[in-house]
Each structure stands twice: as C-alpha cells, then as structure tokens.
C-alpha cells in the first residue's frame, strides 16, 4: 500500500487532490476503516483536515430572482440597442440578428438549464421561479412540449433516439453518432398538483411527485448514469454494476447500483430525505470538495435525513418504508407526522396555499391516510376534523383557523 500519505499533515491533505482521490478509492474498497483503526494518528489528522474543509465551506443566502431578472432586463436591453447599431453597419445580417434578439427575449422569459462544468460542484441549474400550469418536457434542444395530462408518462426508447409521451405521440431526438461525448440533458417540470412518470433509456423508472423537476439525458453514455432532481421522486433503478446510477440534488448525491428508493429534496423543505425500499445506496453531500467523509450507507428499510441547516445526516430504521412511496399509487399515508408536514404536502399535491392564523400549524403528530384522488374539499373536511381547525377555501387559498373552543396551542 502507498503509505506516504500516512505522514501527511492536515494541511497537505486538504491541498493535495491526489490524496483525496486515493482516499475515495480506499473508501470505496472498504479499506479505509481498517487503515484508520491501525493508524490512530492518521485518523486524527484526517479529522483535522475535515474540520478545516468544513470551516472553509461557504454557504450563502440565495440571490433574489427579482434582482437577477431586473439586471437581465437592462442587460438584454443594452444588448438589443447595441445590436441595432450594428445592424445599420451590416445591413445584410439584419435577419440573423433579429432572430438573435427574438431568441434572447425567449430566453429571458423562460430561462433554461445548463450544466455547470466543475465536477466538484456539478449541479443542474433549474429555474426556481418557473411556474407552469401543465407538466412540461423541455428537450435539450430547447423545444418545449406540454404533457397535458395530470398524470403524464414519458418513455425514452433504449437507443435514446425517441421519447414516447403519454403512450401516444412519439418525438424523435436528434441523437449523436459519437459514443463518448456527454449527451445534453432534457428536463421535465411537474407543477404542484400534478404527477408524472419517466422511463429512462436504461429501463430505470422514475415517478415524479408534484412540484418536482428532473434533468436526464437521452441515453447514458460514459461510465456512469446521472440524473438531477429537485423535489420528490421514487426511483426503481435497473441494475448495472458497470454503470453506477447517480441522483444529484442541490445538497446531496445518491449513488446506487440497482435499487428502489424514494428521495424528497424540495427547495422549500429544511431536510432532504431518502427512504430505501430495496438494495443499498450511499448518500453524500454534493457541495464543495467531496471527501466522502459524510458518506452515509443506507440499507433496505432505512431512512436518511439530511438537515440543510447544520449539514448533518440522521439514519433511522423505517419499518414502513411503503409509507414514503404510497404517493405513486395515489395514497398519502402519514404516521405520527407533524401536522405542519402534512399541510405542506397537501399544498403540493393540490397546488393550494394555506394561510394560517397565528400559532398554526402546530407540531402535533397525527396519523392517517388521504386518498389523493379525492377533491381538495373532501380532503379538507377530513383534515380539519383531525387537526381541530376550521377552514375557508377561496380559490387556491385556504384560510385556516383554530377551533375557538380549543385551548391555545403552543
């Protein structure tokens, strides 16, 4: 074994990328634990290196979308003005630039996705303010397709040459002849109140819950399969040992070989939650220098909860893993769930917004089962009874008040 690293100081560990690669390999071969046990000094230094890296991790407030849009408007305007001056000089190129301006306007309205290029911070840039009424497929080419149905289905054929939508229309993909270039990503956007399922080129099935986005390639070239998720999805991954499957969210990465699991990573939630139904997955942080030190191995019937605020991961046994995947069948069971979570989920499924009187929702734990095929009115009747509240529905807003006769809650 290459032991020069055992004498490294914590600073050298942090600085040397080869060391990080070496360490990742050890960890993947499950040799790291043994090495750490045999070399306590090495373990201490690794701990120090870890702490330094954690200190250096910069986490920041998001930039307001309003600011981004406002700046873009004036930049795009300046661009148009400048282009028009240009046009006078080069009259024959008029058409081309007019097309460019139209294209820019389109982009400023819809935005689009792109892959950041640094491997270590790899993440899809989903537009956060995208509010669509219909589920929508955005192809890598920029073409947008409305999926129309409340529960749409998408299937990419094995060669990645075409996508079938709702078992009906077939859309051919440009495809590429070269084997090794990274294929561009398509994006599916599922608004609140809708659901969708996607079958990827490798046969992996993904059920996307309300308010979710996923980016996926036409086909999986290269040595791994990789998709990006914001929101909640249930994955049934086709086993392929030679091509591990990765699901990346803003905060974490899940690595799977072949397995079934549910992943909930909504922007608005404080936690990212993975529940494993079958097989094994590993979960780790996505940001910054990835040392695999926060890697968490998850076995079947376990739940991992990653807290976005303090960057910690908790693992619990979950005897009823099915609870977390029941939404794919149109059920929403909850077992000793805080009332606030239940309301949050109802907001997503039905695309409504709760307006609370003060002190609500409480942290009371409730259990039960909702049929998501019921109308929001029916659901509210049940919920109001369990939660001891009164409600008033006004289009998409639902006003909630505590029952007057109930004692005040904290």
């Amino acid at each position, binding site marked *: 074994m290459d032991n020069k690293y055992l004498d490294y100081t914590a600073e050298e560990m942090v600085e040397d990328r080869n060391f990080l690669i070496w360490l990742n390999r050890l960890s993947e071969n499950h040799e790291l634990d043994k090495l750490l046990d045999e070399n306590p000094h090495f373990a201490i230094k690794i701990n120090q290196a870890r702490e330094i890296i954690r200190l250096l991790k910069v986490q920041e407030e998001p930039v307001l979308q309003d600011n981004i849009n406002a700046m873009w408007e004036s*930049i795009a305007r300046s661009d148009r003005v400048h282009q028009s001056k240009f046009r006078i000089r080069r009259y024959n190129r008029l058409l081309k630039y007019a097309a460019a301006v139209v294209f820019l306007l389109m982009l400023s309205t819809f935005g689009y996705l792109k892959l950041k290029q640094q491997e270590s911070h790899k993440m899809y840039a989903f537009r956060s303010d995208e509010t669509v009424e219909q589920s929508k497929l955005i192809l890598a080419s920029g073409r947008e397709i409305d999926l129309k149905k409340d529960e749409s289905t998408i299937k990419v054929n094995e060669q990645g040459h075409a996508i079938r939508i709702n078992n009906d229309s077939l859309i051919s993909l440009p495809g590429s002849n070269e084997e090794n270039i990274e294929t561009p990503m398509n994006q599916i956007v599922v608004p609140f109140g809708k659901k969708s399922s996607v079958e990827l080129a490798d046969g992996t099935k993904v059920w996307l819950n309300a308010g979710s986005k996923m980016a996926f390639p036409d086909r999986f070239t290269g040595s791994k399969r990789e998709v990006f998720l914001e929101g909640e999805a249930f994955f049934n991954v086709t086993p392929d040992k030679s091509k591990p499957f990765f699901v990346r969210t803003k905060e974490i990465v899940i690595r799977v070989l072949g397995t079934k699991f549910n992943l909930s990573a909504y922007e608005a939630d404080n936690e990212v939650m993975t529940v494993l139904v079958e097989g094994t997955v590993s979960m780790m942080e996505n940001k910054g220098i990835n040392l695999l030190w926060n890697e968490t191995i998850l076995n079947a019937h376990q739940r991992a909860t990653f807290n976005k605020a303090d960057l910690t991961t908790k693992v619990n046994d979950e005897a009823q893993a099915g609870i977390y995947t029941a939404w794919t069948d149109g059920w929403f069971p909850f077992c000793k769930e805080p009332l606030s979570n239940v309301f949050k989920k109802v907001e997503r499924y039905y695309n409504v917004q709760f307006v609370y009187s003060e002190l609500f929702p409480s942290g009371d734990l409730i259990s039960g089962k909702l049929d998501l095929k019921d109308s929001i009115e029916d659901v509210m009747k049940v919920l109001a009874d369990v939660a001891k509240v009164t409600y008033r529905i006004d289009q998409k807003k639902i006003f909630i008040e505590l029952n007057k006769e109930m004692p005040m809650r904290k």
Partner: protein
Amino acid sequence: MLTDSTIWNDFRGGKGYALAYIYSGQVEHLYRYGRKFTKDEELIKDTIQEVFYHLIRNRSNLGETDNIRFYLMSAFKHRIVRSILSEKHSEDSMEEHNSFELSIVYSYEDELIGKETERKKVQAIRKVLRTISPKQREILYYRYSCDYSYEEICKLMSIKYDSARKMVFRALLSLREHLDPIDLILLFLFKKKR
C-alpha cells in the same frame, strides 16, 4: 457539452444564445462574490451590469478565454474595488490606495448567529477564522470555494506563485492550530454513520 471557449467565441461572434447563457450561468456567482466586498447590494448590481455592458459594447474586441467565470470575476473585482476606493476617497481623502483588502465573510458567521443554541459554536468558529488575515481569507475563498488553480489565483490577486502557495499553507496551518479548542464541538458533525 459546450465548453467555455465555444460559448465565449460564439458570444464574440454575435451568436444570440451566448449572452443569456453566460448571464444565467454566472450571475449568481458574481453576486455572491460581490457580497464579499460590500453589503451594498445596489453597488453589486450596478457593477454586474457594468461588466456585462462592457462585454456587449466590446463584443468583437474581447480577448479569448477558456474560463468565463474567471474572466468575469477579474473584471468584476477590478470594477468594484475601484468604486469602493473612490467612495472611500470622497469620504476620507487620506485613505491609502493599496490597502484595500476584501474581507471574506464565511457564511458560517452570519448563518448560525440566528439560533441561540448555536451561539457558542459560532463564537468558536469566528475565533478560528479571525486568526487568518483578510488576504488569507480571500485566497482560501478562491482556492476552496471557487476551486481555482494557483495560476488563476495569482492573476486575480496579482501575486507570485510561490507566495500564493505559502499563503495558502500558512492559512491552513493557522486554522489547524486553532482548531483544537473546538474539536469537541465539531467532531460530532463528522461521525461516520453506518
């Protein structure tokens, strides 16, 4: 996948998609970078816009780059430092020219303050971060938050390769030496779970 060089050349050649592509990919990063220099969000916005106006005006005369983010950060830093210095001059004409150093605020400091229970942890972390100079903070930011090579850092900070490396190592050493008191506080965060 599009490389930075391709996008940049498309932009210089007047291809329509490139400006929006560059903007949407880089604006958040620039904005956050701006926050390292000033709390004045208007100044940050103005500076970002000026950087892009400049690109648009000089579209066909721009140099090449294979790292757009780096290119924009250099341009941004240049402009924002100039504005901050000139503001300082108007208030206090005795300000020395070259003493401007950006003070990187690691989000830890701001982020954790809200929670009462986190106060102690924050104090410990602040103490450690205060042991390194603003220049060191800046260099660590480029190295670990932006993942820049030493060559790029040298250009951004106008320093020599050797001194950049030395500065990074000294900063890391200083962090490590001051870590011990907070070992216990941080350790539990890294416990490996099985």
